[in-house]
């Protein structure tokens, strides 16, 4: 008897945890009135999806989000690789002081600096552009730290062998270190993509038009019309927005969880 209590609690918690999602999916496929009155056997409809789909340029938003996470990821990879390599394998004066400075950025959250970052972006002409949304996140202290750790664990012999063969510094980085750090790159990519796919506040501030708005901002504007909301349509839009990442997560769950572990614990 006692043996069953804990598993029951565990499952109950799991059910509670996914219930918001389940209800949203349920509401998305039913008429408003059926949805909120829980008529269990009411007909399933795709009408909400049609209304939601026609209600905003979702394809454009998807494309923007995709472009955004790609831009950020490329920027982060380049910057973090170069900086991480310098911190890990090039010895020069001032390096440790600089590293501390970079680590400080772990706490200077871009989210808190929205006001001045907005001005910087405006001065650089980056308002309402994908680059503008991505720029504050490109030099990620977290990424630099992660790559430094990864590069530090590369065996010195590989490095020296490559140098003996006449590779330049960047050549060594590209041929030896980058391939060796592949798992870290994958882990970092997953963390970065899921963070920025879901980011909201900064994109809300920087974007002005449909041609740059990512999904999260599009969803928030879609969900807050002047004169009231339709729960079923909002649910449909929400389900639509979260579906791609959710499916990817369910398909690659193991790698996903592993990625978060690599990124967080090492």
């Amino acid at each position, binding site marked *: 008897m006692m043996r069953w209590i804990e598993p029951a609690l565990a499952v109950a918690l799991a059910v509670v945890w996914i219930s918001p999602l389940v209800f949203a999916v349920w509401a998305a496929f039913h008429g408003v009135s059926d949805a909120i009155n829980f008529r269990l056997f009411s007909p399933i409809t795709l009408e909400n999806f049609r209304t939601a789909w026609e209600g905003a340029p979702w394809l454009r938003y998807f494309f923007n989000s995709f472009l955004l996470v790609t831009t950020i990821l490329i920027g982060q990879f380049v910057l973090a690789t170069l900086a991480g390599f310098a911190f890990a394998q090039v010895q020069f004066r001032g390096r440790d002081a600089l590293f501390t400075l970079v680590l400080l950025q772990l706490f200077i959250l871009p989210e808190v600096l929205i006001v001045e970052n907005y001005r910087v972006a405006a001065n650089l002409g*980056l308002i309402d552009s994908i680059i503008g949304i991505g720029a504050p996140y490109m030099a990620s202290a977290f990424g630099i730290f992660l790559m430094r750790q990864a590069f530090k664990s590369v065996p010195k012999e590989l490095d020296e062998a490559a140098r003996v063969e006449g590779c330049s510094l960047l050549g060594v980085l590209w041929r030896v270190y980058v391939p060796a750090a592949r798992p870290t790159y994958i882990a970092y990519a997953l963390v970065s993509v899921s963070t920025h796919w879901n980011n909201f506040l900064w994109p809300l501030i920087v974007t002005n038009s449909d041609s740059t708005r990512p999904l999260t901002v599009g969803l928030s504007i879609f969900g807050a019309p*002047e004169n009231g909301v339709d729960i079923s349509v909002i649910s449909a839009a929400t389900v639509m927005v979260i579906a791609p990442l959710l499916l990817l997560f369910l398909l690659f769950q193991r790698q996903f969880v592993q990625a978060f572990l690599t990124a967080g614990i090492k």
Partner: protein
Amino acid sequence: MTRYSAVAAIFAATTALVNPAAAETELTMYYPIAVGGPLTQVVDGIVDDFMTENPDIKVNAIYAGNYDDTRIKALAALEAGEPAQLAVMFSIDAYDLIEQDLIVPFEDLTDDSNWLNSFYPALMANSKIEGKTWGIPFQRSTIVAYYNKDMFRAAGLDPEKAPTTWDEMIEMGKALSNDDHYGLMIPSTGYPYWMFQALAIQNGKEVMSNDGTTTFFNDKDVVDTLDFWKSLSSEHRIMPEGTVEWGTLRQAFLEGKTAMMWHSTGNLTAVKNNAEFDFGVAMLPGNVRLGSPTGGGNFYVFKDASDEEKNAALKLIQFMTAPEQAAEWSIATGYMGVSPAAYETDALKAYAAEFPPALVARDQLEHAVAEFSTFETARVRDGLNAAIQSALTGDKSAAEALIEAQAAAERQLSAYK
């Protein structure tokens, strides 16, 4: 239009130099409706008609969501040097827009005083400041009472007679309240000050002066008004406790969770299309007098625009507020036709004959007053909103909450006196 970087902008500029054929005036208009909704198609349609008539003007409409989002977006664009020549924003933003030196009065753009005088005076009240006209009404509303006639019948009330006084409202509300639904819901999130202002006017008292520098929150009649609102739930039990959500209220009304609701006329068409019961629309009831504030959005023209752009913007505004378009807009949404002439068009006459509630908002205009607006309006308004909500939720007494809000408002307005 996406600009990926400053480099791309330079590229674009170079292309424009190479290709001077595009000698047209380009206007960017910020508009407060949700992107892609049915209303964007209406606005897009009107804008397309305008561009067909004026091939040398190109209009980009940016749909920015609700009023707050639109103001934030438009002003952010201006600050960042992005193009923005005109916008529909809250009629009550006028003081702040003037103070930040962002808009021009229409007297600077046109001598056509006939046109400026062609709108309902009540709708101009918020935009006449310092003797000039700063905004032209377009997406305008008042508060009206929607009621469920089926529920009136079920409660043994005359479905053609909505309450006209506070006492009647309470009495009928009690008859209409039961375990399944409430008698009345007045929304208290989103725009609580708006509903409150309606009640205060009905109680015979304005909550602010005409020059935007003084508020009267701690006036006895104003405090009594808030006590009255609170009593609808605490004493008379015809309204739910706590706040009533603006955004989901229409849904609650359509779901039969309340027999009456106060809401913007801007909801009229949506209610008409979705109600599965017989519903009516009535003017708000009165106590000392009848009354409702006006609400909604005006056209503003930004100062930074070039003269050419300002003229094009004026043309667009004149086109959009012309009787035919105003009538089309009113029919599509429930917002008001902004001029008496709009109600004389065949389209709106025919519509009103078929659907008389479309005229309620207009008829109420003779009792309407300017919407709550002061300098520092967003802050002062948020202070009032917070006071209303604290009283309704029982956090503070009405007097206590309003005295605090008054003190805060005086602090914020002291610089403007």
